[in-house]
């Protein structure tokens, strides 16, 4: 998982150059540019369809995500195939549960986990970066040194340790993951805060005696939203990939609930035994959604970056 840091930094430079004041025209331009980007627009449409599927799909389901079809249990590779007759549109999993319903349910969980993790990272990163940038001086130095230090910690290993501790609750886990994914965010936000804070409207606020934290929350953070939005879009697929890795280790979401990662890793285990649909359906949704998220993220970044290519 890679987020093109340099581009984000460019972007934040841009934001500070154009400044928050001209916000409206910036957003307007950005929208026009985004809509011109075919790949991004197509991706947005596909992602919307997947979202619609996740919410409307259950209306067509013949089985719930946890019901076992006892009649086919014991011979999944022939009776559990995708079929309209049995009502298992995507076939069943190894336990005779309807894969259509499970994929829908997994889609909801995976997207939710992605968004929750990204939101926490964004929230912490923005606040941290804004505080460091706004106060500057020694506070800034210390806070950023801490970020430097934390960045040298091997992420994957801390993640595995967190798993062992919070393995019982996927949401606690993602709070934990969010809490170690905010570092890049905080750097970018700090850089931008440094330039915003020199603007007249901030000086005016300081002069009229508005409190520091009010200034950060009311005036600085709203002007950071563009860069934050882009970064968040790029964090979501990263979170989804992380979740899939956790499911691979067998420590993800609790049954009977499932996620893309859990479904894919189950499917990958049985792909040799003539039940390939168990891998292909969830993998299709996973790959297509991540594709879309990547393109949307790229599109947003390009749109908010007036240096047109």
């Amino acid at each position, binding site marked *: 998982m890679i987020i093109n840091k340099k581009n984000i930094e460019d972007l934040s430079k841009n934001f500070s150059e154009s400044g928050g004041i001209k916000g409206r025209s910036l957003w307007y331009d950005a929208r026009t540019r985004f809509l011109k980007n075919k790949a991004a627009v197509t991706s947005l449409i596909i992602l919307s369809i997947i979202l619609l599927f996740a919410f409307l799909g259950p209306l067509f389901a013949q089985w719930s995500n*946890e*019901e*076992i079809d*006892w009649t086919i*249990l*014991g011979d999944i*590779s022939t009776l559990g195939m995708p079929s309209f007759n049995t009502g298992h549109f995507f076939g069943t999993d*190894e*336990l005779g*549960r309807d894969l259509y319903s499970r994929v829908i349910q997994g889609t909801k969980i995976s997207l939710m986990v992605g968004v929750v993790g990204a939101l926490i990272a964004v929230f912490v990163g923005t606040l941290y970066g804004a505080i460091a940038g706004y106060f500057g001086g020694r506070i800034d130095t210390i806070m950023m040194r801490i970020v430097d230090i934390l960045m040298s910690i091997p992420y994957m290993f801390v993640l595995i340790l967190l*798993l*062992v501790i919070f*393995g*019982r609750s996927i949401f606690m886990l993602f709070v934990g993951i969010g809490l170690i994914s905010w570092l890049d965010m905080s750097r970018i936000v700090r850089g931008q805060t440094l330039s915003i804070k020199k603007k007249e409207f901030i000086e005016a606020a300081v002069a009229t005696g508005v409190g520091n934290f009010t200034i950060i929350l009311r005036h600085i953070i709203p002007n950071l939203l563009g860069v934050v939005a882009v970064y968040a879009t790029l964090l979501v697929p990263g979170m989804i990939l992380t979740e899939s890795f956790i499911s691979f280790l*067998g*420590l993800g979401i*609790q*049954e*009977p609930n499932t996620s893309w990662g859990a479904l894919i890793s*189950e499917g990958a*285990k*049985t792909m*040799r*035994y003539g039940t390939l649909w168990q891998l292909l359906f969830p993998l299709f949704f996973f790959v297509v959604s991540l594709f879309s998220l990547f393109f949307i993220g790229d599109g947003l970044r390009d749109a908010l970056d007036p240096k047109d290519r």
Partner: protein
Amino acid sequence: MKKILTLISACVFGSFLSTSLYAANHPVTGEKLSADQTFTYWHGDEHSSQDPQIVEDTYGANIVRDLFEGLLSQDAEGNLVPGVAESWSANDAKDVYTFNLRKNAKWSNGDPVTAYDFVYGWQRAVDPATASPYSWYMDIMSIKNGGEAINGDVPPSELGVKAIDDYTFQVELTASLPYFASMTTHGTTFPTHQATIEKYGSDWTKPENIVSNGAYVLTEHVLNERVVRERNPLYWNNADTIIEKVVTLVIPDESTGLIRYLAGELDQGPVPPGQFKKLKAEYPDQATSFPRLCNYYYTFNLSDSGIEAFQDVRVRKAMSYAIDRNVITEDILQAGQIPAYTFTPGATAGFDTPSVAFSKMTQAERDAKAVELMDAAGYGKDNPLSFTMVYNTSEGHKQIATVMSQMWKQKLGINATMENMEWKTFLDVRGKQDFEIARGAWCGDYNEASTFLDLLTTPSGYNDGKFSNAAVDQLMSEAKTLADASSNYTTIERILAAEMPVIPIYHYAGVFMLNPQLKGWPYDNVEQNWYSRNFYKVAE
């Protein structure tokens, strides 16, 4: 580099040797032997140690049995056969045992194996400085001063073992123990070479240092990858050993293990859950299944930290009756596991599976009875029972938990929330009674019903459900002194069926893929103590 060359030349030389010697027939059965006598098999995880006094897992025990030899061994049926001891005797009170050692047993460095090596090994096992995780085994062997030495109250040298002379080893017990001799097949009681251990400390088990007395010597050990052991020419019964080289491959993923078996890299490989039936159809002579001495159950938490509903025996019985065990064994596991209605597996020696109240009913009758009991207890679809069931992370456990929760939901309207945990967390939670209903499984330490039923007595440290029944405790303590305790065990099983402190699900089967060329696997040894030196490979 030099070492590698030596190794290569040894291998080349070894294979010439084997070709010339064993392109022959098996001395007893007369089968034509294969030129290649390497046995390669699968382990799912790295073993804990190859030090006999330290090892604590089955994988490690497999290796230790090849490298070392204790007083006695087991044959293919699990009967006692001489090991280093040629013969043994006990006094009438059965509290002093004397073992006569063979004079031709040698360590791999040429030293003779003497009674002093056993004294050293046994003292080492109880020495608090060794901190052997199996030191308690010496305590349950009832050796004089065993417990005291572990506690540090007396020095290990006070342990009730002595070498009368170089070839006579004597053990003093604190109680009469008719089955004591059979306990000496366990790795903890194997001899170790004092000079080597004192010279190298904890490094003594490395291939370049280790001195052992078994049929094989350790030649290579790569953590998490492989363990190689090769024929020990100094082993006293070397002439009858056919397998030249034994290779353990560590492959954590079972599907990969199976692929590597099918690609011909392994002689024995794993069967991933649910795949046995298909493999059996495709490879009838390779897919193997036989009953094991292990049970699989769910235990109710009957202590104060459990939920109110489980104190009601009607609820417990209804939940047990509603589980269709045939679906689990035939449709999910599909590998010859046996549906369980008793706690003790039927394969246990001297235990006839008693017919208990619910084992003879049809599933429809059980389901009807379950609904009735649940109603009587005041639960039903309009007043559903809810609880959390915990199990440790594994594909197989997940499948069974899912099926059980669905059976409960559909038949009794129960809302069971599934919760999986990784192994150590699970053990922690279960050991602290921080659960409502939890998965459990137990493999017999020895082939007798008490190894299972002890679990459900009040003082047992393994009784995680905290079931306590005076009659069971009474019958179990009685059973210890009886020559034939089978009627006690039957009575206990009937009590368990009436009280239902645990829900027995099934009894294990040993399931794996085995190269049909490899002969001599001890299927009838229910503890599955196998020795590579008893195997051989026939020609194709």
